[in-house]
């Protein structure tokens, strides 16, 4: 069965993929559908959804178009999710690979380092990092990456530990391949599927983290993100439910979609049923 066929067997994954594609399209077409800046105050404040034509999701506390914010925010939220996950992978994969492959003292040292980061409550650390670096997209991405790499390192390490004594790896060592080649060509490709699955969940978690930071007022004030929108709407949640509802829904759907896609990937990349026979 082809990869996609296996993926598509999971109906939830297919729905997730469709949602995710829609969100990506939203992000891509935002500049064309809503060419104006989402910060622009274009109508009366606190318009309910569809109260006035052309303002599908209403307006916010200052008369900015919520729909424009959601569309433009898709871009920012996805970007933060993807980039911070990428950075976390860049930190976590090599650390985990080296620890898992070499074992011994190197492993001990690297794992203490990882444990250390896991001992500090990660949201607290993220807050402090963003506050120290001052809120901006870069600092948010970095902070999220710094708090989310330990699980990657642990996962990659566990995979490497289980694979490094596989016979094909030992065979590669016996024929005289260098450690670098073994790590990169023999083991790493075989750890990719759990990494991909984890990464899809990390993107989701990163989006949630960004929104939580924004909620505490630690978002980048120059870009419109969903987290920012909820954070800005929290004080008016009583008089304008739609201000936090729609971006909340957008986050929920995105995270949901990423999870579903992750599950689908898991099924497709690790076809357990076919292995069991």
């Amino acid at each position, binding site marked *: 069965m082809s990869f996609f066929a296996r993926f598509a067997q999971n109906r939830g994954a297919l729905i997730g993929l469709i949602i995710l594609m829609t969100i990506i399209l939203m992000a891509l077409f935002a500049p064309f559908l809503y060419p104006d*800046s989402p*910060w*622009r*105050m274009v*109508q*009366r*404040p606190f318009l309910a959804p569809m109260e006035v034509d052309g303002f599908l999701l209403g307006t916010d*506390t*200052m*008369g900015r178009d919520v729909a424009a914010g959601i569309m433009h925010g898709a871009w920012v939220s996805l970007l933060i999710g993807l980039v911070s996950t990428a950075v976390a992978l860049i930190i976590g994969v090599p650390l985990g690979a080296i620890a898992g492959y070499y074992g011994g003292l190197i492993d001990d040292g690297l794992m203490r380092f990882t444990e250390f980061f896991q001992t500090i409550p990660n949201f607290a650390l993220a807050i402090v990092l963003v*506050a120290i670096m*001052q*809120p*901006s997209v870069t600092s948010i991405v970095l902070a999220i990456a710094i708090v989310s790499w330990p699980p990657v390192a642990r996962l990659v390490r566990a995979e490497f530990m289980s694979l490094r004594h596989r016979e094909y790896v030992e065979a590669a060592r016996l024929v005289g391949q260098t450690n670098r080649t073994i790590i990169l060509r023999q083991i790493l490709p075989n750890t990719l599927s759990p990494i991909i699955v984890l990464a899809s969940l990390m993107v989701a978690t990163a989006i949630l983290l960004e929104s939580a930071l924004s909620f505490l*007022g*630690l*978002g*980048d*004030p*120059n870009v419109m993100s969903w987290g920012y929108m909820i954070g*800005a709407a*929290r*004080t*008016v*949640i*009583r*008089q304008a439910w739609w201000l936090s509802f729609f971006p909340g829904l957008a986050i929920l759907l995105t995270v949901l979609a990423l999870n579903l896609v992750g599950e689908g990937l898991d099924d497709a990349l690790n076809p357990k049923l076919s292995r069991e026979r």
Partner: protein
Amino acid sequence: MMMKTPLASAIAALALTSTFAIAEEPRSGGTINTIIQPEPPGLVLGMVQNAPTRVVAGNIYEGLLRYSTDLEPMPQLAESWDVSDDGLTWTFHLREGVLWHDGEPFTSADVVFSADVFHRELNPSARAVLQHVESIEATDDHTVVFTLSAPFGPFLLSFEAGTFTMVPKHLYEGTEFRDNEHNNHPIGTGAFKFENWDRGTVIQLVRNDDYYEDDLPYLDGINWHIIPDGASRAVAYENGTVDVLPNGTVENFDIPRLAAMDNTCITDEGHEYFSPFAMLWMNNREGPTADKRFRQAVMYAMDRDFAHSVLWNELGQVPLSAFGSNARFQHDGLEPYDHNPERARELLDEMGYDGEEVRLLPLPYGETWTRWAEAVQQNLREVGVNVRTQSTDVGGWNQRLSEWDYDMAFTFLYQYGDPALGITRSYLSDNIERGSPWNNVGGYENERVDELFNEAATAFPDEEREALYHEAQEILHEDVPVGWLMELGFPTIYRCDVKNLVTSGVGVNDGFKDAWLDR
């Protein structure tokens, strides 16, 4: 586009009714629940002067005078006072029979100790006044004489409890003030005694049964709830847990909804002494903001009426120029800077603005301020200014302003009733000093303005001061050293059966002593 809120007129009407309410017979009893936001760092006025400390501790401690909503001095610990004809010698006659909360009598020695020792060491705003004071003497147990080096116009406005607190000499003299054990259990002379502070939850004050004014206070106690989330604070009022929302405890967006509730009154009286004035610092030293035309363009570009109506619910008012409407000696003949993006663009073209990035520093004091920065950012972008907002917390904001590392920055300053106390500090060139966000942070230097302000501070009588201040205002209005954003109206929301709550120019800071519950 404008939302017409009936709120402002409602406030006016309510203010009237509350005046009538005084005619009723006050009743004793009942504990009042209110909110303090944020949690104060400490309660010893004089050692800490930040806003929440003043709000709570203003009911524990007292100054020599209080001020009415018209900023007229009223007796407090001083029963009466006289001034010599040259304006240099001020004599205060203290009330007799006043006791500290620990039972010791309050005397002139306490006044001298507080002013000459305690505040000189600890209190920068008191130090600013005390530099004009040559000597302080107690002539008997109940008389204190202040001798000034030169006449100082606003001298009599300096004795409010928050600025010039009376602290007990017998507890503090000879100790390390900041480590004094009584700091955790403040002892004052006020109508309420400190009872308990459950950090993060509540500060409780109870009635001072030995208070020197008959029948006062009417209340048995005050509970100051500590609730860090704005929405939760609104809920606390809605579900009846608290009865009074001092200014700044709920977000502006919540005010219309709360004010519309049954049995709810709202007043914007009680802030006259402070008259908070929101400004936009512009760095006069470098970058585009160093150009007068750029700063004027900013004034034209900003839609201040929008901010007034949408963000502030038409509370407060859009200022004309550097002097607020509550300030003495305001010049009302100046031509206002209206919202005029066209004119702003012209000015930018004229100066040859090349799109250089301008950093905007919002004030990290809550949602309204953040929204406001967003609105200004958008206003400026629409006339072609390349703005980048730098979000920061209180620490970063302080640091950047103190180090002059900004282009434009939001702030607000208290005016303290007299230009020489609250206004001129932002413009005087000898007030340019790194390390504080409260001096002339913009770096504006104008010799003529310096001259006029310095002369005006010590000029006597008032007519002379007025002429000097008017000339200075004309220059400032042209130069736009800072952006004048808003004279803030800080409303107090309370249940209508809480009577007589706001009786002075500092509002609830010392207001609970007269308040009573009609239940």
